């Protein structure tokens, strides 16, 4: 009886120990995420402050105003405070979702953003799905079935990777929107299926280079895993090829591929600005471009911060997912 108690206690201790480690690991990652966000907020705020031109000249729009009127404007937008106070006020507001008031729209920035975020989110999500599905499919096929078709697919992927996003967008519009008429030329459409229809072409344009990249990457990962020693063990045991591929090749190749694919998808956020502009989707990216041109500082800061936050959060999620996929990364490390 006492023996079983000891065994049970050991099991619990083991579980609790690894649980604690998991919590510590996750907390560590979240701490890192917050630190990165803080640094990013400094950079975002500082960059605009250092940029040429100041909001006051845009507020006055070149008109000459009385010093009293300027003082009122400065007080309204807190432009007379020292920089660090302006930063702290902005940061404090941002933490509660208040990014100030847009100079151009004269509305709370959060409202301006909320109206445009869904279009961007849809674009990036659709592009991400295309990258994962098409990229992994191409890579898996080319990796597992070497031959003329695979080689031409890889050569094609290299070519596609070299095409700039906006060129791909224009070509896609020419072929599928103007000539074939399958998709609208621009605009975001009404929410729902219409929005998906409107976003399909932009999403493909945005995803194309990343599909090629992820395809090449997963092909290489699969080929490398196929020649790994442990796969040779599996072959020497007479296991069916399908079983070996599923169990020993795909799973192992997935780890590096998913990491890089995740980073690539995070990178789509930056590229989406261009695509939104080309397709006039009216999302955050397009707003960013116009706000920069109009020196709408609060909006630019808020969008930059949202982009950076999305990127960093995605990165952290990838990190955590990798740790779950690879037992060698110390989530619940137990020693023998």
């Amino acid at each position, binding site marked *: 009886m006492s023996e079983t108690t000891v065994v049970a206690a050991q099991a619990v201790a083991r579980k609790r120990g690894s649980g604690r480690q998991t919590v510590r690991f996750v907390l560590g990652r979240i701490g890192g995420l917050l630190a990165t966000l803080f640094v990013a907020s400094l950079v975002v705020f500082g960059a605009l402050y250092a940029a040429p031109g100041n909001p006051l000249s845009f507020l006055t729009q070149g008109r000459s105003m009385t010093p009293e009127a300027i003082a009122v404007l400065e007080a309204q937008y807190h432009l007379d405070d020292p920089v660090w106070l302006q930063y702290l006020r902005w940061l404090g507001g941002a933490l509660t979702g208040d990014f100030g008031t847009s100079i151009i729209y004269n509305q709370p920035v959060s409202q301006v953003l909320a109206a445009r975020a869904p279009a961007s989110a849809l674009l990036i999500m659709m592009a991400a799905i295309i990258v994962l599905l098409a990229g992994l499919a191409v890579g898996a096929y080319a990796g597992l079935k070497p031959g003329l078709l695979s080689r031409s697919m890889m050569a094609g992927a290299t070519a596609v990777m070299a095409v700039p996003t906006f060129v791909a967008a224009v070509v896609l519009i020419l072929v599928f929107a103007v000539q074939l008429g399958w998709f609208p030329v621009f605009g975001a459409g009404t929410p729902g299926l219409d929005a998906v229809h409107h976003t399909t072409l932009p999403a493909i344009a945005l995803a194309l280079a990343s599909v090629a990249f992820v395809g090449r990457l997963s092909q290489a990962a699969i080929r490398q895993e196929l020649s*790994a*020693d*442990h796969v*040779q*063990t*599996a*072959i*020497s*045991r*007479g*296991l*069916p090829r399908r*079983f070996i591929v599923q*169990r*020993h090749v795909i*799973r*192992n190749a997935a*780890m590096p591929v998913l990491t890089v694919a995740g980073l690539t998808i995070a990178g789509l956020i930056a590229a989406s600005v261009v695509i939104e502009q080309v397709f006039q989707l009216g999302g955050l990216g397009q707003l960013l471009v116009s706000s920069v041109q109009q020196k709408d500082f609060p909006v630019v800061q808020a969008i930059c911060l949202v982009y950076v936050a999305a990127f960093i959060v995605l990165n952290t999620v990838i990190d955590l997912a990798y740790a779950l*996929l*690879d*037992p*060698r990364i110390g989530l619940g*490390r*137990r*020693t*023998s």
Partner: protein
Amino acid sequence: MTALLNVNGLTVKLPVMGELRTVLRDVDLELEAGKTLGLVGESGSGKSMTVRTIARLLPDGADVKGHVRFDGAEVFDLRGEALRRYRAGDVSMVFQDARAHTNPVRRMGDFLTEALCTNDRMPRRAAEAKAIQLLADVGISDPERRLRQYPHELSGGLLQRVMIAASVAVRPRLILADEPTTALDVTTQAEVMSILARMQAEYGMAVLFITHDLELAGAVCDDTIVLYAGQVVERQRSTQLHRDPLHPYTAALVQARPEIGHRARRLPAIPGHPTTAYEAPGGCAFAPRCRFAQDACRRAVPSLLQIGEQGSTRCIRMPDLHGRLLATTGAGDEASDHQRADAAEEATR
């Protein structure tokens, strides 16, 4: 009785950088059921290639001539399902680097049971019970816990034992052990060897044992084959090998080993460096490094020569040199006289 494994005139060429390079030349070997055959040689001598050929694990584009027969069936005629069955049930490999040869992201339980569940359609629970039994058999404590562990959580010796357990799990008729203990420290080596020997006796398996350790081969193998530059240069009873070698190369290997109980001033190394089959000169491949080599040795590739009941050798001078190979380089003895005579002969040429 016909042998379980019969390799005849095996010549293997592998594609390296666009050309075919010879790795094995005219290799013959025979292994009877339940027996152990040692395969000894330096790196690059073709030991691993021999077992890889037998297990049909050669890379694509390999050029194979000669015969490998397992239980009378030509191994290189096996295709598809028959080949899978041969690999699954007849031969089983134990690899040198157990860590590289286990999937790092799969638990040991998966490693031990996948062949049973997939090939033998054994239910998972039964396979796990068998795996636990096998782990206990190879002296691993707390087997239930090991099944849930990953390879990186096990030490090298432990992992190699798991490897052996996994190999014998399917009750193969032949185990191909490719330097199973080379990566382990000496005490672990001894344990792993005794486990392998016990498993072999218990299940009546034949073992083809690769090593570069002559003494180890002598201790565990019935017969030993010495490979040099992709060729068999000697075959005889393992117990005789280090007492009465039949080839100057084997003799040189024996002498290059330090012996416990003797204080050696300096170990006699073999001059020159190991040759691969691809670079081997015409004539006897060992001739450039051999202190007994004569002109005749360099003229033609010697064929295997039977030395009475004792074994065979690929040395044309053996009838003359037999029994004198180990008489060392100490002053005034016959072998060094020979060497001096040879050197003189060389000089006058």
